[in-house]
């Protein structure tokens, strides 16, 4: 289908508008970090600070254990990714391949766990973690986040595995693989886009959490995740929005890196050529 010139222009205008809406908050966060508190209160607002206050980044990094917070967030997020992917790959694969009575409704039933609000689970999780002595430990976050992630990723991976012809692993088994070997050597590489998407979902969900971190990581500031750290920067009388913005930029950077790393796997069509 060929587009006319007018159609192309309209298309590009539409894309530009959407990009503008999506990018504006990021831009705003960035210039907030570079402005002085005075500039932030001026009306009309300034769209580029003069001069840009780059030293704010250095200042927040000195005053607060930001690197430690980021490290904690990273450990929690990577831990959640590893734990939840391990469970949901095996669960999703089983649901997709093994015919069990009620297997289909089981898949949907797992998803209903996702419909419970996260805050509803905070109280039972808290009492469980307290009784096993995990309060204050990063493990509490890894486990709690995984309980939120696993239902959705299991369901998503089942859907992905369903699209892969089962002859692929049958061929691998005839070629000498065990059933588990066929999954690891053939099905998982072919599922890279699905695995990348679900890992990303898991990482972002854990990274963005505040409620669980607030509840389970009560003690010292050294245990905090970055999100928890940011919220403590709101003062009772004054709030330095430029400093909060500067820390937020630090927090956003790992997500950007993860996206760039996983992007090449997020393209579909990896099974192309398997058949016919």
């Amino acid at each position: 289908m060929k587009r006319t010139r007018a159609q192309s222009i309209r298309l590009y205008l539409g894309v530009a508008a959407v990009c503008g809406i999506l990018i504006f908050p990021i831009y705003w966060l960035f210039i907030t970090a570079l402005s002085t508190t005075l500039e932030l209160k001026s009306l009309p607002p300034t769209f580029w600070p003069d001069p840009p206050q780059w030293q704010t980044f250095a200042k927040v990094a000195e005053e607060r254990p930001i690197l430690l917070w980021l490290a904690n967030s990273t450990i929690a997020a990577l831990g959640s990714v590893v734990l939840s992917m391990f469970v949901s790959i095996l669960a999703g694969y089983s649901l997709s391949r093994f015919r069990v009575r009620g297997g289909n409704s089981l898949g949907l039933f797992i998803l209903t766990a996702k419909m419970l609000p996260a805050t509803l689970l905070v109280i039972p999780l808290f009492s469980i973690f307290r009784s096993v002595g995990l309060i204050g430990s990063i493990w509490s976050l890894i486990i709690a986040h995984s309980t939120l992630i696993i239902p959705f990723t299991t369901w998503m991976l089942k859907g992905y595995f369903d699209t892969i012809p089962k002859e692929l692993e049958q061929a691998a088994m005839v070629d000498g693989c065990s059933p588990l070997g066929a999954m690891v050597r053939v099905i998982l590489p072919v599922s890279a886009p699905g695995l990348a998407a679900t890992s990303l979902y898991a990482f972002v969900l854990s990274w963005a959490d505040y409620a669980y971190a607030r509840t389970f990581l009560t003690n010292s500031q050294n245990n905090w995740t970055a999100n928890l750290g940011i919220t403590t920067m709101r003062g009772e009388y004054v709030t330095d929005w430029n400093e909060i913005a500067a820390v937020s930029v630090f927090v956003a950077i790992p997500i950007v890196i993860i996206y760039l790393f996983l992007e090449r796997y997020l393209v579909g069509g990896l099974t192309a050529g398997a058949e016919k």
Partner: protein
Amino acid sequence: MANISIRDVHKSYGTENVLKTFSLEIGDGEFVVLVGPSGCGKSTILKIIAGLEPASGGQVYLGDRDVTDSAPGDRDVAMVFQNYALYPHLTVRQNIGFGLKMRGMTAREIERRVIDAARILAVDRYLDRRPKDLSGGQRQRVALGRAIVREPQAFLMDEPLSNLDAKLRVHMRAEIGALHKRIGVTTVYVTHDQTEAMTMADRIVILRDGEIQQIADPDTMFQKPVNLFVAGFIGSPGMNFLRASATEMDGSPAIEILGMKVSCKNRNLGSASKLIAGIRPEHFNVGGGEFSVNLRSTLVESLGSEKYVYFDVGNDLIDRSSDLDEEFSKGLIARIGQQGRLNEGEVIPLSFSLENLYFFDAETEKVIS
């Protein structure tokens, strides 16, 4: 290489019995074709031989090894799938070498054998491509290459040509035949195309609803079908089936067919009174003969060297198209070799002889001979 012995294998899914007792002895180096309409259990028996599906009962022997409970990888068979099932994330070289790698062969040995196999199948120019960058025929060859490189005890092929266009199919058919002659590995080949079965097989096994109908070499299958199903399945275009009944004429047995009564002194007509007479389209002649009848043609299809002429004989013809997985019946069909004009709507004097008629019991559908 080895012989394959399938003894009393059967298979049910839940209450559905998809494979009734199946026994077959396949000789070393033999090319056996399993053929039958869709859903008759061809893939099921192949997967049982490969070890991809457990049998509900019975044994499978490869050579003198009982492999009934062995894992697929321990059976030393290679399989070519209907949809090829190439590993999309691996190159052609890695696809072909995968099975060797799994068996712990050295990299040098793998490379040597992959290149040998790729040469035989003329895919050695594409070794570094991925399956998605190959044409259908090339993918088909890679799938074959993955099987032959292993030098297995047996090849199992599940409709390997069904995804190719007609011309390539004929070409690959010949290539698989030549390959089998060259390396002589015992092969079980599944198809629902009777032409493929007739041209490639040492022996054909016809299956219907999970039940073996007949096991025979192609010529016997064609000349001596044991029942109505086999008679209708083998041959293209298929045999015509006409309602017939046993009667008497001048005190000796006779047959009534298409409104004619003809004496059949020297033929056994069995004891049934309701019969089905079968006649192949090529056994009709234009002009006089033992049985002759004037029929008005409804359709003439010219193929150049010969013509397919169709006649509407109403209820006398038994329509078996649904049973055979075909589109629909266009009527009684005669295959006329002679040149000259035959027009649609013209009355044509057709004849055929008693020796070319097959008789089946209308009740049991078994042949009467």
